């Protein structure tokens, strides 16, 4: 029943880990060769891999775990997918029906536990209900604001038999989809855009989910509106475009944050005004009217006041909006932004003998010509990867934004590579987060997934150390950490690796990794106390951005970026 439903939904890959209650399901897998099962080493890895797979392909990611601890280990991954609106379906085994509620061996109330972090979850008490549940679950995962779902299936339900009848339609009277946007609201928005002197687009992950790349570009170019993105909005608009002003927020570009502060109109598309993006909410965009386009009505007005809310799918709404927006120039405004960018070049890299992480990221960008899928961990490595790699290819950054899950990087990179075998996938990790899911190296080797891994190894939990340096008088409590010799670890797991300590070794190492047909790991021994700048301190407004203290004035210019503009 389960496999048949998965096949009907076009599932090709399942990330899983077996156990007692899901054994009947695993026993049927060989009869479905079209379902590739990937055995992870920890169930958290299964959920993150399904997440990475879903983000990279736009398809629904599927993961399986057994009851009890298996299901519990999925929880972080499900929460991660929930916060970032990623369509995954988790199938968990449950103890047989007569044992439910009796604290049986490996029994866990996983539907209760995951209820606040799933779009919907199901306890399937009847085998005949499985096709309907799977139909609904896939429909819900894919439509509207995507999200994770969980289907908990007791062991004896797996074994029960019933006639398989897969429904064509779902019956969900409580599921309301508003996709098209209200015409009167779109008209109002167009009027505001046409009247604005200093308009600014803030694009979020909704643009990536909705694949509204062309529509966003049309709006920006037609009315000459500068574009900044959230962390997860990165790559929805080519970063080498003349109208791209990078990421906003806590570690956003100074000029992007200045632009938000001075704009007279914010057009927010598929983003949710997260606190990392807005900084101090009361001081957010103080001079601007706000148009908020989002598919989820519960996001409208949640964090900031909105002047024109438009509930709908970004692509559908932008198509209508673009027709009503008149061509415009905004020469002074764009000039102002360019001026800020010149004076506050947030992507400068100090010229130094120290091995800087920013330099490493920039070189990965250059060697891959910006055509890789980048999967990051959480913390400094994530921010450097967001700042110093320029994303021109749509949907090419995969990162844990909402939940901020360290350890996401390796299994998510595995999922992305399995989903997109022809793409180059780089996993940018920190030495802290990498050790949280390091066991998935075995999965990568077993599956021959050619993931390229770059560890920004500074011997610290770097982002926390940075906060301790700046806000806790340099008291480094519980942030210095040792790690294994990652190259030896890689070799022990069966993949090649290189240690890099000096600048001149960076490019050859990246090239070696790229030339390697299989997975490859590079341990970059970076400057231990390097900080992420710019930074908006917690509680401050976006305009109060702190830029990198000028240690060494000489800088590498942004020529690489400027030379590829107008792509």
């Amino acid at each position, binding site marked *: 029943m389960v496999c048949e439903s998965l096949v009907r939904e076009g599932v090709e890959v399942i990330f899983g880990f077996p156990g007692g209650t899901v054994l009947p399901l695993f026993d049927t897998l060989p009869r479905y060769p079209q379902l590739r099962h990937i055995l992870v080493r920890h169930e958290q890895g299964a959920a993150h891999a399904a997440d990475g797979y879903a983000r990279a392909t736009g398809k629904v990611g599927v993961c399986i775990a057994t009851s009890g601890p298996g299901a519990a280990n999925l929880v972080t991954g499900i929460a991660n997918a929930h916060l970032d609106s990623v369509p995954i379906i988790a199938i968990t085994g449950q103890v047989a029906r007569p044992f439910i509620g009796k604290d049986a061996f490996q029994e866990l109330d996983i539907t209760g536990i995951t*209820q*606040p972090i799933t779009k919907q979850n199901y*306890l399937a008490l009847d085998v005949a209900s499985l096709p309907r549940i799977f139909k609904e679950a896939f429909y819900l995962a894919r439509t509207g604001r995507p999200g994770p779902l969980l289907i908990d299936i007791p062991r004896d339900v797996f074994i029960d038999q019933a006639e398989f009848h897969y429904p064509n339609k779902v*019956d969900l*009277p*409580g599921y309301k989809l508003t996709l098209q946007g209200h015409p009167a609201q779109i008209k109002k928005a167009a009027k505001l855009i046409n009247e604005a002197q200093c308009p600014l687009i803030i694009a979020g992950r909704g643009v990536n989910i909705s694949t509204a790349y062309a529509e966003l570009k049309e709006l920006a170019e037609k009315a000459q509106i500068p574009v900044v993105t959230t962390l997860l909005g990165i790559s929805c608009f080519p970063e080498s475009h003349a109208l791209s002003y990078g990421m906003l927020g806590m570690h956003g570009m100074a000029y992007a944050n200045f632009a938000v502060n001075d704009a007279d109109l914010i057009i927010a598309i598929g983003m949710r005004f997260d606190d990392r993006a807005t900084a101090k909410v009361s001081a957010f965009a103080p001079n601007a009217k706000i148009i908020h386009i989002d598919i*989820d009505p519960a996001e*409208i007005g949640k964090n900031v006041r909105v002047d024109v809310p438009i509930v709908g799918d970004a692509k559908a709404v932008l198509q209508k909006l673009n027709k009503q927006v008149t061509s415009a120039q905004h020469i002074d405004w764009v000039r102002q932004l360019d001026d800020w960018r010149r004076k506050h070049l947030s992507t400068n890299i100090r010229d130094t003998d120290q091995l800087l992480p920013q330099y490493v990221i920039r070189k990965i960008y250059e060697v891959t010509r910006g055509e890789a899928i980048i999967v990051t961990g959480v913390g400094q490595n994530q921010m450097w990867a967001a700042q110093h790699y320029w994303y021109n290819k749509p949907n090419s950054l995969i990162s844990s934004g909402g939940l901020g899950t360290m350890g996401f990087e390796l299994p998510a990179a595995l999922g992305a590579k399995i989903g997109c075998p022809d793409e180059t996938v780089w996993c940018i990790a920190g030495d802290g987060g990498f050790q949280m899911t390091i066991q998935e190296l075995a999965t990568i080797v077993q599956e021959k997934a050619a993931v390229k891994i770059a560890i920004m190894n500074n011997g610290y939990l770097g982002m926390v150390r940075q906060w301790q340096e700046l806000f806790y008088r340099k008291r480094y409590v519980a942030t210095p950490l040792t790690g294994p010799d990652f190259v030896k670890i890689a070799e022990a797991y069966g993949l090649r690796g290189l240690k890099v300590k000096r600048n001149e070794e960076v490019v050859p190492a990246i090239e070696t990794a790229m030339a390697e047909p299989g997975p490859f790991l590079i341990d970059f021994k970076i400057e231990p106390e390097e900080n992420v700048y710019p930074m908006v301190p917690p509680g401050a407004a976006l305009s109060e951005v702190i830029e990198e203290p000028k240690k060494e004035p000489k800088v590498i210019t942004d020529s690489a970026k400027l030379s590829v503009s107008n792509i």
Partner: protein
Amino acid sequence: MTRHTLVALVEDKPGVLNQMASLFRRRGFNIESIAVGHSEVPHLSRMTIVVNGAAAMVEQVRKQLDKLIDVVKVSDITGDDIVARELALIKVKTTSSTRSEIIEIADIFRANIIDVASDSLTIEITGDEDKIDSLFNLLRGFGIREIARTGCIAMTRGGSGPVSTDKRSPKTKEKSPNK
């Protein structure tokens, strides 16, 4: 902080109440009362929730309730012209000398005596919250053994209310083909 009355039409399935209550719980809202029962449509229940909270926060919860797959409709009817009623059962200590006085009080409130024992009376009263509170206060002097209240149930006056089923589009009334 103001008191809000929300009415909802929800699927009659396990876990729905839990999901809804959870959205209040995560914000630390204490639900004053919650009352659920079958609606006029099979498989759908109607719920009345009374909660104290800041208006903006309650509106945020309402939107998130509306987002739940199993919630068909939900509306905050606080400012509307509504009828709201609650039912209470009050068991009062009696003696032969107080019994008739208690019955008289119950009569004034148009409450019913539904059980009589040698040392107690059980009174059923329906009304708005103030009425039930008044009766409770009057009876307190006699000694209350037990009180059970249903919590408020409410609907808007006249016409069809914000969560009535007759406004549902024909499409959503369709049965799924697999049933």
